[in-house]
């Protein structure tokens, strides 16, 4: 299992039977492949479908069934289609139990920056801000550092924040942090990771409460 799948598998452990879940692009998309037995979740996509199924087989693509990344998906039994206003009412109103999102940075309070890349003109926000304020629980799944090894968990975000609300859990290939009112708490080391490595690659203060 590669690094991204390990992160996704750890995130899947957080889901409970019956949860309505919104998955962001990238690592979050893979969470659906790692659900524990007996856990049925219902995938919500903000463009108007509750009950997203896996990607269609070649030749079975319905161009009117896509996810928020505009990629073809399938529909599951018991699904429903709805307009964007109801879809965001679900999100903002707290009816999506869990949102699993990627992030560019997480700050020491657990707040996320994930919508605006450095330097570029800001041209897209999409549903990220609504998901971050509205979802029952928000889980960030991401690589612990950038491609060139810079920490993504930082004391203060240099990129613009996506919301004033902290997320609940941050999962990387090295560690799991719970976000509390007093900041980040390291609660798990991922297999093979050491506390020393996490400290070296993290630029935010955090407390350690390993089980």
């Amino acid at each position, binding site marked *: 299992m590669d690094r991204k799948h390990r992160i996704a598998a750890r995130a899947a452990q957080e889901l409970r039977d019956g949860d309505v879940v919104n998955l962001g692009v990238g690592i979050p998309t893979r969470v659906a492949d790692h659900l524990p037995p007996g856990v*049925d979740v219902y995938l919500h996509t903000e463009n108007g479908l509750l009950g997203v199924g896996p990607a269609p087989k070649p030749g079975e693509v319905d161009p009117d069934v896509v996810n928020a990344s505009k990629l073809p998906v399938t529909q599951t039994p*018991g699904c*429903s289609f709805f307009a964007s206003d109801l879809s965001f*009412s679900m999100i903002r*109103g707290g*009816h999506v139990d869990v949102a699993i999102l990627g992030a560019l940075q997480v700050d020491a309070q657990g707040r996320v920056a994930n919508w605006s890349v450095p330097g570029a003109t800001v041209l897209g926000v999409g549903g990220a801000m609504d998901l971050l304020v509205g979802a029952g629980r928000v889980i960030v799944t991401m690589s612990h550092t950038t491609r060139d090894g810079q920490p993504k968990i930082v004391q203060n975000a240099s990129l613009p924040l996506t919301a004033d609300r902290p997320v609940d859990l941050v999962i990387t290939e090295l560690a799991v942090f719970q976000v509390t009112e007093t900041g980040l708490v390291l609660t798990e080391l991922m297999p093979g990771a050491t506390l020393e490595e996490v400290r070296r690659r993290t630029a935010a203060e955090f407390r350690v409460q390993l089980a």
Partner: protein
Amino acid sequence: MKQKILSKSDAIARIRDGMSIMVGGFGLVGAPLELIDELYRQGQKDLTVISNNVGEPGKGLSRLLEAGRIRKAIGSYFTSNPVVGEHVLAGKLEVELMPQGTFVEAIRAGGAGIGGFYTRASAGTLLAEGKETRVIGGQTYVLEYALTADVALIRAHKADRLGNLVYRKTARNFNPVMATAAKLVIAEVDEIVEVGQMDPEVIVTPHLYVDIIVQREGAT
């Protein structure tokens, strides 16, 4: 799959004294009458009821009112039940009245994560006294806040086992929007079908809004 189908007694047993309860229906049309009867039977009291009307004498919510179990009623049109007036005059019932469009919009806001909204309705009238206003585009709007509740009792026509709902004709009314705005949503339905037997294009209330499904006992 979560088991959402319960008996009406188990469903209503989740309601505690002092809770706020949204109740669907326009008059008795589309009102969850079996759930209301069960609530009457179980005896919960000190309730805040959020409903367009409060039943009719001897029927629906009025039975709870007559038994002195409703402390406050929030809605839009109580005139059709004279019992409401009697209880208000006797100081036994507090009433909060709003335009019907404001009432339903406030519930929608509660379910949709909208904290408040500006409506033209009631601007310059008695009902807007003491409320904040704002001029937008040259017209006066009244600020109204979201309404939510502990429980919603709603009536639908059909459910699947996941909790997807469809309604029947004008019995739809306040039911779908109340299903979005309460912590615990209990739906009384005529019929329960298997998952996959409802057309995903015509579902009015997706299952994420529904916690408990109760099969009606009476003929529909």
